[in-house]
């Protein structure tokens, strides 16, 4: 493998040139004092309360948008503040309209990998099997003009995976990926990461972050309010321990409020969420025992698997207050 630099993106107090105007208020910068460090081989997913903020941040990272102040270093090379060029080592996907419509998916991928030194028959087989393995077999020979924009975007990500670029910026927070495409992205991202490359996704889909990313960054009001591993994010902010489903959920909540005074109870989608309050650890087994000791068996009781979605909602709620 090439001798790749360890620090891929380094940002220090970066402020955007763009401003946002709220009625009756002073114009504010869209991004304020962004500090970030992304290392080689990591898969980052950026989410936030505003798609504009996410999109803009990734554009600055890809060096296609100027920034007003601060310091930004890409692959250990300083990025000039005002000179905007797509660098060779960045594969930027900001739209899915980059695909040729007169080809099918496999033909397109063969076309973009034409420079590869691997034998064409073997390469074609490799790409074809990779598509099938990633769960994209159903579109592997489909004409590009029949694909949805999300499907096109995933094919472009596959093309990026086969490129020599060290950073892949997948900046499509406005796209909604379905349950077939999310695992496909996760698979491709894992392969990219294995090759020592870095992938940065802009998305508002928490599930995509959960499935595909090793790290996440959360933007709120132009600032990064969280930037660390996905695992840490889930454990730290998804405080729901147990989820209880039952017909008499409201009555149960009243009783449990007395039995579990150290816990926070809330109803969401007809399900009772039992969360720990504060930073104290709680034991789901103990909660279950307490419910059953009361002589009452709920229809369904499950230990919360800790999701990015819940963690995200909790974090945003904390900052919104």
């Amino acid at each position, binding site marked *: 493998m090439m001798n790749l630099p360890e620090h891929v993106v380094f940002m220090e107090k970066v402020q955007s040139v763009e401003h946002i105007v709220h009625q009756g208020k002073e114009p504010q910068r869209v991004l304020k004092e962004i500090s970030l460090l992304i290392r080689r081989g990591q898969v980052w997913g950026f989410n936030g309360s505003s798609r504009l903020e996410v999109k803009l941040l990734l554009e600055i990272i890809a060096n296609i948008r100027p920034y007003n102040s601060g310091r930004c270093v890409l692959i250990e090379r300083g990025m000039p503040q005002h000179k905007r060029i797509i660098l060779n080592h960045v594969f930027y996907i900001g739209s899915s309209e980059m695909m040729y419509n007169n*080809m099918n998916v496999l033909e397109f991928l063969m076309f973009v990998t034409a420079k590869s030194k691997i034998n064409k*028959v073997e390469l074609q087989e490799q790409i074809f099997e990779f598509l*099938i393995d990633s769960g994209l077999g159903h579109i592997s*020979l*489909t004409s590009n003009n029949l694909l949805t924009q999300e499907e096109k975007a995933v094919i472009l990500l596959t093309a990026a995976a086969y490129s020599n670029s060290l950073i892949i910026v997948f900046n499509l927070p406005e796209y909604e990926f379905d349950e077939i495409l999310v695992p496909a992205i996760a698979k491709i991202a894992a392969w990219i990461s294995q090759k020592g490359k870095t992938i940065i996704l802009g998305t508002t889909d928490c599930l995509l972050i959960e499935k595909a990313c090793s790290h996440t960054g959360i933007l709120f009001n132009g600032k990064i309010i969280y930037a660390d591993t996905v695992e840490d994010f889930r454990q730290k902010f998804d405080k729901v321990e147990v989820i209880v489903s039952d017909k008499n959920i409201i009555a149960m909540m009243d009783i449990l409020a007395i039995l579990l005074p150290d816990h926070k109870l809330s109803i969401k989608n007809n399900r009772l969420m039992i969360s720990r309050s504060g930073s104290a650890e709680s034991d789901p087994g103990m909660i279950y025992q307490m419910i059953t000791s009361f002589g009452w068996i709920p229809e369904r009781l499950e230990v919360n698997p800790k999701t990015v979605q819940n963690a995200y909602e909790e974090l945003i709620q904390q900052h919104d207050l």
Partner: protein
Amino acid sequence: MSSTKYTTPEQIAEMRRELLHEKHKLHKLQGQDLSWKSRLPSGKSMIQLSSWIVFSALVLLLVTSIISINLAKNRGEIPNIWGFQLFSVESGSMEPTLPIGSLIVSRIPKEPGSLTIGDIVTFRTISGIIVTHRIIEVIFNYDGTVAYRTKGDNPKNSPDPELLTEDRVIGLLVAKIPLT
């Protein structure tokens, strides 16, 4: 290209069969290659080898030329490389054939006594000046020696007053390099 939106399992299976077939063909070809082709250097390495030989030859030629020119200059001789000499034309006596400023390549004649009319020769005059003119007449002397009457091509010129003897012939024109 598929006319339906999704690729069917049948299409995938067909594609796999096609790829497998192509791979078999490829392996067959590679097997044949091993029999005789692989023993020869590939086209790319042949080109690299040839380029290297040409480059080395050019460098060698340049180095030997520089050494021989300097040695000849030190000895007060006219420098030559493998019998070829280079002169620059400084007067208009041979215009329009040899314009002022052009370079001429001459070679030392093997038999200076057998030059013919029309040959352009570089020679040393009795006073020691190097001149390039055309032979317009060959004169055979009674003692068996040969002399040449020379003249510049410029119509203004008249034939040179002194006859050229074979011992003063330096070179016979081979080519001209018009730099102006």
